[in-house]
């Protein structure tokens, strides 16, 4: 285009701009409306999740609180005896709370070191081939249904414990701890490997260039740099362990004893609810809801911890 007259050129372009604007803002409103509709649909779908969480929370509180009030919060939380079907029923859930805490702590004590070392190996030492093969195995481990863990535990672990430790019954706290430790491995490994893989190579190179060996580099630079991700992995494992029901029901003996020894038959918070729900009624049934509420509060606590660690990760990179 040859510009013969500067003024008319400016006028032309302004005309063109207003036309373009009109087209975008008025004629284009059809596209915009569609955009709004799509936006609305997605929002609605998102709200379904939020709604479910809210509904469950409210329901648990409404149905869980009455029994706690009737039994008395101290008697309920710290009562050492659970005898819901006795002539004079006792509703103390301390055995379940302690069992869940000990069981989870034990699983973490075994699962975290194993999972952590495996992650360091996979992320830093393993050749690409070995890494991908082992990661598929870990993925598979994550996909095995918990009833299968329970079954194998029942058929292999429980008799094994009975023989090795020479106890009358192998089903108990120890068996549950071992099964849980294996079940939390995949979440710990996957998340820790992701965190370790994300450590910038520059850090490692700097360390190697200072004369540090690869192993020194991984443990003194890479692991500290990935620590919030690894902490989050541990918390995720804790969450999995405390929420597991089916597998522990099958290997823990499922008797509401205080967890005084590793070989004691015990019942977890999760299995306390599921074992009696089918035939419960009255206060017993209400108490089961209260147990579910306590479990829910534990999980909320763990989630808060998880968010805390993941946020730590995010703010660090800024």
């Amino acid at each position, binding site marked *: 285009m040859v510009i013969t007259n500067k003024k008319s050129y400016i006028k032309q372009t302004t005309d063109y701009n207003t036309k373009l604007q009109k087209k975008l803002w008025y004629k284009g409103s059809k596209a915009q409306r569609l955009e709004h509709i799509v936006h609305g649909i997605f929002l609605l779908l998102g709200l379904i999740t939020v709604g479910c969480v809210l509904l469950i929370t409210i329901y648990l509180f409404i149905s869980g609180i009455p029994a706690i009030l009737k039994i008395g919060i101290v008697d309920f939380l710290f009562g050492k005896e659970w005898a819901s079907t006795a002539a004079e029923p006792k509703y103390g859930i301390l055995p379940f709370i302690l069992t869940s805490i000990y069981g989870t702590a034990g699983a973490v004590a075994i699962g975290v070191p194993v999972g952590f070392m495996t992650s360091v190996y996979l992320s830093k030492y393993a050749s690409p081939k070995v890494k991908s093969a082992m990661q598929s195995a870990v993925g598979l481990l994550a996909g095995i249904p918990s009833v299968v863990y329970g079954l194998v535990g029942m058929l292999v672990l429980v008799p094994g414990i009975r023989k090795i430790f020479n106890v009358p019954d192998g089903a108990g706290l120890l068996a549950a701890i071992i099964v849980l430790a294996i079940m939390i491995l995949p979440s710990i490994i996957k998340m820790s490997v992701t965190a370790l893989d994300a450590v*910038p190579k*520059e*850090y490692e*190179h*700097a*360390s*190697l*260039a*200072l*004369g*540090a*060996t690869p192993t*020194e580099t991984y443990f*003194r*630079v890479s692991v*500290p*740099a990935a620590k919030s991700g690894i902490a989050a992995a541990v918390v995720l494992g804790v969450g999995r362990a405390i929420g597991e029901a089916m597998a522990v029901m099958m290997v823990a003996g499922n008797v509401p004893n205080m967890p005084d020894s590793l070989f004691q038959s015990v019942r977890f918070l999760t299995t306390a609810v599921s074992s009696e729900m089918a035939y419960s009624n009255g206060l017993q049934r209400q108490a089961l809801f209260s147990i579910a509420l306590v479990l829910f509060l534990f999980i909320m606590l763990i989630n808060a911890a998880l968010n805390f660690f993941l946020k730590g990760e995010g703010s*660090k990179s800024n």
Partner: protein
Amino acid sequence: MNSIISVKDMCLWYGDHQALKNLNVEIPEKSITALIGPSGCGKSTFLKTLNRMNDLIPGVRITGDIRYKGADIFDKEVDVSNLRKEIGMVFQNPNPFPMSIYNNVAYGPRTHGITNKVQLDEIVERALRDAAIWDEVKDRLKKNALGISGGQQQRLCIARALAVQPTVLLMDEPTSALDPISTSRIEELILELKEKYTIVIVTHNMQQAVRVSDYTAFFLLGELVEFGRTEDIFSQPMDKRTEDYITGRFG
């Protein structure tokens, strides 16, 4: 001049791609050698060969001979960690560890077995002073190193490298990510370090090479075209290609 590193007939391949061709050079002791040349000519590759950081790249193959103080650096008996302790490195982009300033500098000495707090404090202070950053950070040694400016981070990285008391310091375009003021501070620093260390510096900037270096090596397409005293290279280059490059005809 006394040479501290001598390179003979060195070739390097990344897989099938030959990145360095038949290099022969003697790096003079306690002086500054600049490596110049257009991007991709192999300057970084050559630098990383000297402290064997290339070992980390799969598929690298090296032939020829490199001797550090007379000893073959590729000998099976050589402990790579010790070699890298002797021949330190500063990278193009400042890469302090995500930990405190103090711990960054103390990292190397700790790795090499120094645990005594008093001794570590001394080493850290001396390294930070030598790297001309002590006054700026002495009141916040416990603060995270990622919180200081890019120019300060690079001087911190130099301090970190000095803290292991190397003999040679390799620097790969240490100022290319920095502003002019930080750049001139680091150039001054490099000139001061010449007293105690042998420095090999890659630079994109020919003025920088003239300002800081005693010797200059000009690389082109994986070949070492010319090596000599910096004033000679820049005033009367022997090779036509060197002349073309320094007069800005290409690159």
